[in-house]
């Protein structure tokens, strides 16, 4: 942990110092997302966190109490209906994936081309490497004016939109999202002050994701998620499954 090159952002330089609090789960939701965004690109912090988590776990080993038998039964019957996640394979993108197109309108063909590419190459999760520059995602999560709107979806999944007007960008964090129905995708939208919905990218196909929305969010009045045909749509074709109102 001698690498303190992250001095470009006001708050980002001391993000390393959160490693201990992260290891004992003493970060709030926003700090946790921010630190995990940092972890994805800081090998020093990953090493340090691994050691500190190992250490913290020792603290909890001291008072063993056998759980009641019904817990065992519930666990062993519960796993019957849970599919273990596949292992991470070397060329797959990391847990956190950058939105797949550049700014602008979604063009179905190019999206498909980029998706094909994404399967074959390592995507840099935050669009910046260890060059010491905080990524746009990190800057949003660390910004002083970060505004956070949380929603639990009917499926039990949860999603949080973090908006920074000063950065002009928004980030969505998802937890436990079910996969989109076969042949469909989750598309994100930024709502303009006039009420129009502007495409803001397609959510990566994973249950827990951190994604930077495309487009200028400095004036956005809301963020929506809809289910769209594969490749996405230029405008929503169904009612949103989640709508996040952003106060101006």
């Amino acid at each position, binding site marked *: 942990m001698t690498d303190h090159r992250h001095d470009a952002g006001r708050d980002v330089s001391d993000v390393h110092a959160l490693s201990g609090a992260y290891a004992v789960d*003493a970060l709030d939701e926003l700090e946790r997302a921010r630190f995990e965004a940092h972890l994805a690109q800081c090998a020093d912090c990953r090493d340090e966190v691994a*050691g500190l*988590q190992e*250490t913290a776990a020792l603290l909890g*080993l*001291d008072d*063993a109490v056998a759980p009641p038998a019904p817990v065992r039964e519930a*666990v062993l019957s519960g796993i019957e209906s849970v599919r*273990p*996640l596949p292992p991470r394979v070397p060329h797959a993108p990391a847990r956190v994936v950058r939105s797949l197109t550049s700014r602008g309108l979604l063009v179905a063909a190019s999206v498909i081309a980029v998706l094909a590419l994404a399967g074959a190459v390592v995507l840099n999760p935050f669009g910046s490497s260890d060059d010491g520059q905080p990524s746009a995602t990190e800057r949003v999560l660390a910004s002083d004016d970060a505004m956070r709107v949380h929603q639990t979806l009917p499926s039990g999944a949860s999603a949080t939109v973090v908006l920074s007007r000063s950065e002009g960008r928004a980030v969505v964090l998802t937890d436990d999202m079910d996969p989109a129905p076969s042949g469909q995708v989750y598309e994100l939208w930024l709502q303009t002050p006039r009420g129009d919905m502007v495409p803001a990218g397609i959510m990566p196909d994973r249950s827990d994701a951190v994604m930077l929305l495309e487009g200028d969010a400095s004036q956005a009045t809301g963020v929506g998620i809809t289910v769209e045909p594969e490749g996405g749509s230029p405008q929503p074709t169904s009612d949103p499954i989640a709508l996040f109102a952003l106060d101006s």
Partner: protein
Amino acid sequence: MSGERPLAGGEPHRDSPSTEPSDLADLLKRSARGDHAAFAVLYDATSPRLYGLLLRVVRDRAQADEVAQEAYLEIWRQASRFDPDRGSALSWMMTIGHRKAVDRVRSAEAAGRRDSTYLHRNQPVSHDETAETVLSTLDAKRVRAALAQLTDAQRQAIELAYFGGYTHTEVAALLDLPLGTAKTRIRDGLIRLRDTIGVGQ
């Protein structure tokens, strides 16, 4: 630590010798492939320690039961993500369980969890509920000795965070520390513990 004695009888798998760290890693690997029997052995080998931690954090028996289920389902789901190069299987499982427990106490805050706190906490744990602990007496002594070497401030901050489930900001307020210093104490304390115990060596 009243649990040095082995369980009489017990669950089918409990007496299996599969409690060596390398065995736990192997059981996780087999679980990732969908091996239910391996997961049952893993559960029996680890659940007293995980449950003990969950109970200490959430403090309430009924909640600990629920969190234990959540934690083990998550361990099953994520088994393939365990990387033996980054740490032990047990601490990986404890990390998942601890996160679940902390998330639970924070979301239950509004629901008045603390009402039932001391009721359960002060009930003695009966002997047949106390499982043998895998942490050897020697290891436990090393951890305690290492804890004793921390400053009071470091130890308090770590305990409030790890067992209390408080955020570093809340820990700072509880300990009358300037904002932002609790996270430093937690990190410094953990690093000292790590180096004293010799984790990862």
